[in-house]
């Protein structure tokens, strides 16, 4: 006898897909589908439904803003103070500390933080002089000092930070979140990525890919001015009125076609998608129209001044997206390579001085703004790079630091996070995570947990296996959950 149980949860694959919902703002098919059971199977079956879904766990968090510090900030220069580096300055790392020397760079001597730390807020959380503005939010931050990852190369580490594994081809965190929770605003993408003007992250598109999930779940690149989405605007000389005329003609032709094909739900869905697109054409540019913001607000984010203009603008847009029900927003600080990113091989002071200078005020303004609008409860803010940096320099007179996957720092703030917390620890040099180690899988499990998703239950059936963001690993760091 051959007994089988079909797909996980007893659903057929198609039902499973329809049931899960989520993804890019798309066709609101719920009504159509409910009318007649699920859409009948065809090879052309559309596989996205976009209604917001209830979370697995109770949570107030509805959105996440992930601030990805591309290039990898140095933990010992930012949030993980190491007095021992003062003490042992100029000495080599003890020989028993084994590591892969990424890129075969020169190995210098132990080097203290280049800016002093200050204990901030009531919690006394130490924050480096690179972040004068963020200091006032110390009591909102849960700093995880014991992060570690599997790879020392930017490309694979970025892909791992975004997708869980250092190999390309898996869905990114944002895809999993919109798959799990759907999206609140059908006229906007559910998962938005804003890159640094200097370029995309190494590895490119796989960093916001939907991997083996349908393309509808992938991140939508959003540009900070004008028409934020590719091909959003109708080309001149047509304009919006001309586009409306096109859509009206199209609707007539499609109607004729559908009349001869009763029951063609996929045809109706596709016809309806044009009206959604038309609404998105109005909604998306509105989200990036910062002229609607007060001068004071723009000033707080540093929108009209250097070096904060670009990241300030992106942070302000991120708030506007969250207000509009966008589920997952990822902002990149740093683009391209080496010193255009946080990849401080030459000089930490110079590099981090530049990149922290670009981002500190905007990030602090974002936290203030979210709080004042009552959005901080429902918005999880995550900060971090793809790995950390070494406690030693790259040689005498070379004050840069090489890649370090063995220990680094991330922080979270906002929705559900216990502020003023320092969790986990690296060794006395800040070289490797030793106490309460937190792998990238654990970071992901924590983010999902805070958003109300159980990372063990958030599965996607692919090629014979229930795939998870966290594969077979991951434990949420409950100690930072309020």
């Amino acid at each position: 006898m051959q007994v089988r149980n079909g797909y996980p949860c007893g659903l057929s694959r198609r039902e499973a897909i329809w049931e899960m919902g989520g993804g890019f703002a798309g066709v609101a098919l719920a009504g159509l589908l409910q009318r007649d059971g699920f859409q009948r199977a065809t090879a052309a079956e559309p596989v996205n439904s976009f209604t917001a879904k209830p979370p697995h766990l109770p949570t107030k968090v509805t959105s996440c803003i992930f601030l990805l510090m591309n290039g990898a900030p140095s933990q010992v220069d930012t949030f993980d103070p190491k007095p021992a580096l003062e003490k042992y300055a100029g000495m080599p790392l003890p020989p028993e500390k084994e590591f892969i020397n990424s890129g075969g760079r020169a190995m210098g001597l132990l080097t203290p933080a280049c800016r002093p730390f200050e204990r901030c807020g009531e919690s006394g959380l130490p924050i480096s002089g690179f972040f004068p503005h963020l200091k006032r939010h110390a009591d909102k931050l849960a700093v995880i000092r014991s992060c570690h990852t599997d790879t020392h190369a930017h490309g694979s580490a970025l892909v791992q930070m975004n997708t869980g594994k250092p190999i390309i081809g898996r869905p990114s965190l944002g895809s999993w979140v919109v798959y799990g929770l759907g999206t609140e605003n059908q006229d906007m993408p559910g998962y938005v990525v804003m890159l640094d003007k200097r370029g995309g992250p190494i590895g490119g598109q796989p960093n916001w890919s939907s991997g083996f999930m349908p393309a509808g779940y992938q991140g939508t690149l959003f540009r900070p001015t004008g028409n934020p989405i590719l091909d959003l605007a109708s080309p001149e000389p047509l304009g919006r009125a001309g586009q409306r005329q096109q859509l009206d003609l199209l609707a007539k032709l499609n109607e004729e076609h559908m009349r001869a094909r009763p029951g063609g739900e996929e045809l109706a869905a596709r016809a309806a998608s044009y009206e959604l697109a038309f609404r998105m054409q109005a909604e998306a540019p509105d989200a990036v129209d910062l002229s609607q913001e007060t001068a004071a607000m723009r000033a707080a984010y540093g929108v009209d001044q250097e070096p904060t203009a670009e990241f300030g603008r992106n942070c302000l847009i991120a708030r506007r997206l969250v207000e509009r029900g966008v589920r997952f927003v990822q902002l990149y600080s740093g683009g391209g390579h080496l010193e255009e990113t946080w990849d401080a091989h030459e000089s930490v002071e110079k590099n981090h001085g530049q990149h922290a200078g670009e981002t500190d005020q905007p990030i602090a303004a974002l936290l203030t703004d979210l709080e004042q609008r009552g959005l901080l409860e429902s918005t999880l803010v995550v900060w971090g790079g793809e790995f950390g940096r070494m406690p030693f320099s790259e040689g005498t007179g070379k004050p840069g630091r090489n890649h370090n996957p063995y220990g680094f720092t991330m922080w979270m703030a906002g929705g559900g996070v216990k502020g003023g917390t320092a969790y986990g620890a690296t060794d006395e040099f800040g070289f490797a995570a030793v106490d309460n180690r937190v792998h990238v899988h654990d970071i992901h499990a924590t983010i999902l947990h805070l958003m109300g998703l159980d990372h063990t239950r958030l599965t996607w059936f692919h090629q014979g296996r229930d795939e998870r963001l966290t594969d077979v690993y991951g434990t949420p760091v409950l100690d930072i959950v309020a």
Partner: protein
Amino acid sequence: MGVFACLGSRASSGVVSSRCYKLVPLVLTVAWAAHACSRLSAAGAEPGGSPPETAEAARREESGAAVDFEATVAGVLVRRCVECHAGSDAEGELDLTTAAGLAAGGASGPVIVPHDVTSSFLLERVAAGEMPPEKNGASQALPAEELAALRGWVAAGAPWPEGRVLDLYEQTNELRAGRDWWSLQPLAEQPPPAGDAANPIDRFLNPRLAEVSLAAAPEADRRTLLRRLSFDLIGLPPSPAEMEAFLADASPDAYERQVDRLLASPHFGERQARHWLDVARFAETNGYERDAEKPGAWRYRDWVVQAFNSDLPFDEFLTDQLAGDEVADRDEASVVATGFLRVGTWDDEPNDDLGYRYERLEDLVHVTSTAFLGLTFKCARCHDHKFDAVLQEDYYRMAAAFWPGPITARDRALMGGPSAEELGYAVLGWTDITTTPEPLRLLASGDPHRPRQEVAAGTFSGVPASFHQFAPPAADANTTGRRRQLAAWIASDDNPLTPRVIVNRLWQHHFGEGLCRDPDNLGFNGPLPTHPALLDWLARDLIRGGWHLKRLHRLMVTSDAYRRASVHPDPAAVHMADPDNHLLSHARRRRLDAESLRDAMLAVSGELDRRLGGESFRQPISSEALEGLSMKGGAYTPSPPEDCLRRSLYMFSKRGLIVPMMTTFDQCDTTMPTGRRDVSIVPTQALTLLNNQWVGERAAAFAASLHEQSPTEAHQAVADDRERLTRAWWRAVGRPPTEPERAASEAYLQLASDSATGEPSVAWQSLCLVLFNTNEFLFID
């Protein structure tokens, strides 16, 4: 938390499996497939001995048990326990596959006290719902009757028939497939049922419709038929001239002659290659940090096109791709075919050299097992497969075929392949770089730092009739011959998977869904075939016909089932009897895939460059879209415009930069094999087709061509607006416009020309763009 049994984080029974194959003669293994294992071992391996009932009774007597171990306990232990509690690597050091293992207990001591239900640790854990552990957060607590069975068994002294070894895969159950799983069984010999239909396919299909009293839809009209056939076979719409010729052809074999014309078209190979390249996870760059170009990857693509066009038998097709460097008539083309093993992702900066090798093996095993066997071998890298009868050793047996190849980290310039000297040709290909590789060892939990026993290259134990280890190479051989032997087994008549898998893929391409709806997974988690006898008959027919695919295509598209209308005259009856159209009472409507859509726009605009083969062109990508690209691998430079009007098959496929227009229409990711693309409907598709510059240029060319006199155009009379509309419809959808369509279009042209910025040419361009956006253009009935 940390480890979840459900997703398998540990090797569970590597040692059990090795015992099976080292100590038990092959004939016994075969018998296991028929679920006779317990009988044979218990009866001292006497095949053909007493009938099951007698043996069963005898054993019951022997054991003196008051409970029937086989009927009540064995199944529970196999289903619930031995996935983890088996072999020397057993979870908690508890092996529940043998009497001795049970008696020995686990790390925490004895697990049962015979006759004592209250003191048995095993029962305690199970009753508490702690065993089996929860899965994806859901309790796996045993149903009451199974717990009762275990209790009764312990109460009776926990009898265990002598010599009985439990095997995870001894029989299919509700949790996993056993060796009796349908796709592992030999191909059925059933001839087509009797019937009136000329095509054997219909003789299989029609009785099933009759069973549910569902009438088939009538044949589709000719226009629909030719459009469907043309997109299916060559991926392009019929030209107005081709359409008119077919409509005017009154001969009885008019349709069949269209089939033959299209099968003979050089574009046939292009269309079929597109499907195969998805399965082969083909792209022309490495992915990862630099995403460097793989030089000459396009030659593999051209080889595939040529193979389909020349109707290369599928057994040779697969052999060349796995072992074209090892075949007797090896030549440059056959070596180019081994590009199959090179076109996947490749990490040029591996984290550690050891892990790198095993990642590469996984890619090669996964693409090979998925493409040809329709099974997910890669799941067995770390442990015996959770759902199918694929032992962890089977994974390594296949991996061993690739082990002598260039899978260690070497000079980055070689891109993970052999040097031209090693390969014998300066092409992107594969060969062994040693004939004496170190032994490949199975890895506990797939962890390179936990090597276990050596595994010799060999075939898949799940097909026991042909199970064998590969012969060692001759002393003077240049390669190990392992891949050639792997290919020979994959293509052998004894392996039922390969013909089923390729037949199912072809069926899916023509009918919209496979007979088995997941073409890449004929295992437990794939849907069962809707028409198993038809699948097997077609598989046998493929072999009988010398593995030629064109005759199979022809057979499928000349069936009545293929030719049915997509609208059923009695939708209520369909809804009641077969809402998912498993029985093919009518045709499935399908949306064009990304490539066909782009190609159709070019064909309709009259711009399509039909040159075959050669280097890929780089589609222009807007600067906004390029912002997402890291330039570490060098800037992206589009090809000159005149090269960008070729078919989408020839579009340069860069892993780190997927052309937005293509991915928007569900072009698949190229990291892993894809036998079936998703089809989504999202507003960004509407935005692309309305506003993308490239699409606008096609609409402009389409509009311009309507204003030209074309000597080949069927409708070339007076080029007034009325005539232009007729032409436009013929080109775009193969028919003249209806009066309402004509009226709406004329009104639109007027409106668009009247608007402030409007002028006639812009209005026509806009109208042509709307035609590209219609459902009729995008969907094939």
